[in-house]
């Protein structure tokens, strides 16, 4: 959540037009053109939850907002969405849900295995609210529907870019726990459907057999300056 450390207005910034945003119902004057995250920091909030990579990848800052005169509930990441005048917003960094326990070795890549762990999947009525709630613009409902019909590959590919922000799970009238559901789908797809990477298997075997032990030991004993030199002079794979 957010922790407020500074309440007084910073006043206007030279050359910047100020806009008014409403964060959890309170008005703040902030310069135009900032992301929601920077606008909140400008307003004096120190973000300790609902902030992460600041690059649109980690899924920590999902934000719901409405623009003036609109009923549409819009969705975005606070670190990626530009604050607009009259915007009402809240950061929703967490969707409450427990992850069901399972052993991936005992599951099959089919609808039955998934529905046994996530029975709510069959409550999907195709309302599409999840899709509208996705800051990544993924076809969330299509993925859920693909799971119901047992098309695990399609489901996994549809939600490949999911950042597990959990907004779909907060909005879903069927109360589907998408975050953990989709993680399971990706795991099943990776384990049972995608072709195995042979070179990876060989390398893991080499590591297990201790092929690199000696080299690692040598590195551990190398002085830091020597390591730095080795790093900067290392051979880089040609493009």
């Amino acid at each position, binding site marked *: 959540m957010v922790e407020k450390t500074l309440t007084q207005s910073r006043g206007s910034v030279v050359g910047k037009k100020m806009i008014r945003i409403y964060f959890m119902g309170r008005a703040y004057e902030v310069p135009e053109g900032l992301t929601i995250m920077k606008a909140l920091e400008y307003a004096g909030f120190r973000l300790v939850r609902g902030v992460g990579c600041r690059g649109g990848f980690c899924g920590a800052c999902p934000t719901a907002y409405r623009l003036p005169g609109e009923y549409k509930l819009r969705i975005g990441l606070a670190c990626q969405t530009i604050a607009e005048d009259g915007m009402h917003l809240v950061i929703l960094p967490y969707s409450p849900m427990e992850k069901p326990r399972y052993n991936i070795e005992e599951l099959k890549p*089919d*609808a039955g295995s998934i529905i046994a762990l996530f029975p709510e999947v069959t409550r*999907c*009525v*195709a*309302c*599409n609210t999840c*899709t*509208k709630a996705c800051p990544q613009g993924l076809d969330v*409902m*299509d993925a859920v*529907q693909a799971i*119901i*019909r*047992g*098309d695990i590959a399609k489901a996994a590919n549809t939600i490949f870019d999911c950042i597990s922000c959990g907004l779909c799970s907060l909005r879903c*009238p069927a109360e589907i726990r998408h975050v953990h559901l989709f993680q399971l789908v990706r795991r099943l797809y990776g384990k049972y459907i995608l072709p195995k990477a042979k070179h990876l298997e060989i390398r893991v075997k080499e590591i297990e057999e201790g092929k690199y032990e000696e080299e690692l030991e040598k590195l551990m004993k190398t002085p830091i300056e020597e390591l730095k030199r080795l790093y900067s002079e290392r051979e880089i794979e040609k493009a």
Partner: protein
Amino acid sequence: MKLLYYPGCSVKRNAIEYEESTLAVLEKIGVEVKELDKWYCCGVMYSLSSDDLIRHLGAVRTLVKTQVESRSYGSSNLLVLCPMCFNVLKRVDKLLKSDPDKLETISKFMDEEERYQFGVNVLHLLEILVLYRDRIRESVLRKPDGLKIACYYGCTVLRPKDIGVDNPEDPRIMDEIVATTGAEVIHYPFKSECCGAYQSLLNREAVVDKSSSIIREAAVRGANVLLTICPLCHYNLRLALESMKRPPEITIAYLSEYLAYVMGLDNVVSKDVKEFFDRVLSKEKPLEGGGFFG
């Protein structure tokens, strides 16, 4: 004829042999079929409560996607295999036609989709096959001697009457299709008796009881094949047959598997069904290997 095709979840998950055999048979008789790019769970049961519109969304969305795709494909006929899906899609189509206020509410909610214009013609497989009886007759390669076939329709392709494909008390449409292939069709009174439906989840005994009486009645009248067009009926009938202490010599198969078999499309017929048919045919004509003629 060109058809858009809605498979439904049951067909994709539990009745893939129904789909494979149907698509092979339709190709053989010259029907062009294209699966919808996007389709959704129909909702399984048509919701009877008058204000629970959200239960209809999956079906409405599928009808809208069909409408969109029909423009580029050039046909708004929508083929459905599963009678449950057929029932829901057709009833939702009818509901929206007869109640503009409900369509208005649903359209406002689904504002990311275009409005449904009622142009989609929901058709069950039986309605297609019966139009192609001549092509089916011409495509038969294997004379079904010895197969005595009882057609089982179940409920949802026939009822309610105003969306059903045939007379719910005495349906003939499947019998006519099967008769075209030269097989002996057995008449029996339980063609549209309930198999037990979703009681298989809650009360298996009720299902075994209902489905056993259907099987026994067909067998008593001489049938050795019971054909169905429904994944749920197929499941329940097989469950009942496996549970019977002294099961009759009868196999339960999809209509499309039977048609594929007589057309020589063996690779889309379930192994056990093919073996059963082979066995019956070889008894009839022990000297002709494989049972082919012509």
